């Protein structure tokens, strides 16, 4: 079977960054300690996942499920903002965004 590279502290930190989850050092250590054995256990899938086997992404195969172009289900601004941590002028207020304009 194919051997996947082991997942170290740096990898966990990078994944946490990619997934936008702040982890404590203790959490990083703990996950780094677990992930190799979990991934080893699941990597067995590659033993049988050969070229000739097609992938199944939906358990029940269907195609062409559409909706008509008709307005429905709309929320009011009040409903939309009711659960917002912060709102201003009918908009969601979010912290300072750095990066692209």
């Amino acid at each position, binding site marked *: 079977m194919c051997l996947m590279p082991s997942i170290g502290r740096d990898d966990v930190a990078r994944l946490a*960054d*990619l997934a*936008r989850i702040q982890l404590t050092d203790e959490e990083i250590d703990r996950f780094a300690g677990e992930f190799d054995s979990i991934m080893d256990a699941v990597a067995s899938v590659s033993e049988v996942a050969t070229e000739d086997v097609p992938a199944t*992404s*939906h358990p029940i195969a*269907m*195609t*062409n*499920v*559409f*909706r*008509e*172009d*008709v*307005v*429905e*289900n*709309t*929320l*009011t*601004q009040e409903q*939309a*903002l009711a659960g917002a941590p912060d709102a*201003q*002028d*009918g*908009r*969601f*207020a*979010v*912290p*300072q*965004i*750095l*990066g*692209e*304009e």
Partner: protein
Amino acid sequence: MSAATDIELVDYDEAISRFDPVLGIEVHVELGTATKMFDGAPNIFAAEPNTAITPTSLGLPGALPVVNHKAVEYAIRIGLALNCSIAENCRFSRKQYFYPDLTKNFQTSQYDEPICYEGWVDVELEDGEIIRVEIERAHMEEDAGKNTHVGGSTGRIHGATHSQVDYNRAGVPLVEIVTKPIPNTKGRAPEVAAAYVRTLRDIFRALDVSEAKMERGNVRADINVSLRENPEAELGTRTETKNVNSFRSIERTVRYEISRQAGVLDAGEKIIQETRHFHEDTGGTSSGRPKSDAEDYRYFPEPDLVPVAPSREWVEEIRGSLPELPAARRRRLLGEWGFTDLEMRDAINAGALDLIESTVAAGTSAQSARKWWMGELARVAREQDSELEELAVTPAQIAELQGLVDGKKINDKIAKQVLTKVLSGQGDPAAIVEKDGLAVVSDDSVLTGAVDQAIADNPDVVAKIQGGKIQAIGALIGPIMKATRGQADAGRVREIIMEKLGVS
């Protein structure tokens, strides 16, 4: 700051003389459907913030997407108009990255299986040269919400203390059209880029799939530019300038990037593959966010949607219903109207083609229709700073007006007065002429009196005419037109004068 900020721009013509530019353009068009791509929220431009939304377009927990049938049809229309193949089977994927304008922190898009692929479109340049642009793919996806930056000096992201987000635009259906590398444009690269986007814009409008207003962001272009030493060399590293929103900005972006990249290469540095931003004020581009984790979008097939498999019957039905496309129409009208290439291009650029065509359809000659729309009406539009189609006059009214001129009911000068009255909402041309008594006076009893008066007032002119200088008649006609407030039938006046003076 990277060293690239110190780079000296190379003069554009010089850059072109030493480098071969290659373009690549990604155009996003917002479809003019009634609702969004994956939910029943209205797809409207101006609304109170966060009112054109449903649980789905707000990305609320539990909400699910369902594909808008109309949006798929529009995507296929676009694909067919761009000579693409339409996939027998395609699917949506999730493009994952965190950003506050994305309600789910992924964009539902098409990745490895676009609905349209492998097409082309011919782009006509100013001088009539035609460049064929190869299309790599056209795929369906959804738009993001809109951030307003607060607390900074200029409403820009930099220096802002926080942002406000409106998700009315989130989930609006988009089709993204991606070209293959566009080679061999040489010094015309800026013009080609703008003309390509303009061509697409016109096609979207003809297909009636989008209002395609650049200024509203209905059509947005990402401009990729790279340089290579010569047309045989491998492609150079490209930069992608995002969201360039006007034809002029597109030209300036390409120009600037060619000069800048030439400067970087001359300095012995490498072009960095990055996204850049165009600045209207300086005409330059600047480096965007350096690519780090944004590169790893973790695409995977959207498990909440099933594949789209347009039947061949449906595709052919759509193909059969495609309207005449702008290029074909242009060719047809050119033949029918007998315009020069220049007249045609001017009419297109002024957005007058539809108006002229309707005016002609209402019975006016093509040249007369052109004269009105490209002459007097274009002048009025400029004065009012508006578009021709926004003027308060219809092609039918123009045709009626020209009909009055052709029937000698009024002359050109009066026609302009009548037009002014039409534009100010006083009614249709014939009614105005009637009501205000503007019809040409050709009643000899009225005209003879005026002629007699003019002959009596201008003995020296009379002498000249009788002495053989027939062209001096104009000096008599002027006062007569004045006396009749311009309504006299100038031809008849001339005849009467000549009779009275016995010349011929």
